[in-house]
């Protein structure tokens, strides 16, 4: 039997289609091929109008995320062989995102959310470069390192039902990146970010489904990051409750 696999690909041409439909393509089944290789085969040899994003083909640029058989996947890291010779594999654009065309989703909203968490090092002081590096021990690096591994592939958004139900939810990747900076000992912006994110569309929007962490190709654990963030927010709230005008300095004063 010839080695074949069938790809059912969601097609959507905004100029003429009301909504997406599926088109089937038969492609050779090769053990070293990933889903992206099959898409490239179709685009090169069969239908040049098939539209999708890809770039590095080594799982680090974050371009080629799609739904493969209903699961958010990086198609450059998803082997055809995991579905077996003769299988039918369904490829769709990442769920919960607006579709621009075929397998291409609109990312502009994600970029706005990313920017909204202030994902940069915030400092109150800026010592001159000649003062050398900010010290950071390997242990301090290890505390936030996991959350710095996000490649912005947005698979976690496609896995998160809250994103689907509440499109204004800041979402897993952006919140995890906020926490990445919060936990960096060089950063002094945690308070500022907490003010921005301790609201129902921020950390409290998360209902701990945990799917973001399961689908993350880089083991970032956004769900864990958000729960840690919630705990910190809750503790801050309690602190504020016990010490109404409570900053840490005031708390040292003895009140009758």
């Amino acid at each position, binding site marked *: 039997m010839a080695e074949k696999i069938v790809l059912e690909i969601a097609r*959507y041409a*905004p*100029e003429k*289609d009301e*909504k*997406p439909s599926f088109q089937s393509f038969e492609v050779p089944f090769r053990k070293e091929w990933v889903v992206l290789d099959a898409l490239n085969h179709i685009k090169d040899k069969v239908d040049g109008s098939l539209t999708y994003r890809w770039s590095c083909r080594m799982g680090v640029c974050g371009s080629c995320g799609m739904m493969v058989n*209903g699961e958010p996947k990086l198609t450059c890291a998803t082997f055809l062989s995991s579905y077996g010779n003769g299988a039918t594999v369904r490829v769709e654009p990442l*769920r*919960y995102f*607006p*579709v*621009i*065309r075929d397998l291409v989703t*609109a990312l*502009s909203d994600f*970029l*706005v959310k990313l*920017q909204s968490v202030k994902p940069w090092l915030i400092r109150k002081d800026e010592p001159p470069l000649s003062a050398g590096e900010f010290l950071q*021990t*390997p*242990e301090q690096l*290890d*505390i936030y390192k996991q959350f710095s591994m996000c490649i912005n592939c947005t698979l976690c958004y496609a896995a998160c*039902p809250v994103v*689907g*139900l509440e499109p204004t939810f800041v979402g897993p990747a952006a919140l995890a990146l906020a926490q990445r900076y919060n936990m960096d000992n060089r950063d002094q912006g945690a308070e500022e970010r907490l003010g921005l994110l301790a609201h129902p569309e921020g950390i409290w929007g998360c*209902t*701990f*489904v*945990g*799917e973001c962490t*399961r689908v993350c190709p880089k083991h970032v*654990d956004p*769900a*864990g990051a958000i*729960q*840690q963030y*919630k*705990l910190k927010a809750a503790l801050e709230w309690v602190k504020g409750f016990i010490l109404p005008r409570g900053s840490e300095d005031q708390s040292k004063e003895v009140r009758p």
Partner: protein
Amino acid sequence: MSVQPSTEFHPRWYRAPVSTYWWMGSWRYSLFILRELTSVAVAWSVVVTLLLLRSLLKGPDAYAHFTHRMQAPWMLALNIIAFCFLLLHTITWFNLAPRAMPVRVGGKRVPEFLVAAPNYVLWVVASAAIAWFVLRKS
């Protein structure tokens, strides 16, 4: 940084509606919805516990009345179901603990099961102690 929007010309985006039955798409989503819905069971258990405490404070008569009411078959069934859901939530919380509170010793993160395990151990010990105490009296 600002971004140049190209909204004037940009094409019609397709927004897939989220189905009412989205949570049936995978067992993980179903489990999640189950947890959301059964938080009512947790609330119910809290109410029952408060009622128990109130009857205890009021005296032996009130306590007897309370236990009698609790023996009604529908009440038993309700509490058994609530108890099962309570177990589900307990397990969820215990498994969440190491993720929300990563513990570090000597700069290294302690493996998750080592953080979760004491919770379970404490839970079993406490349950055993209460069971022993209750069953011994009766």
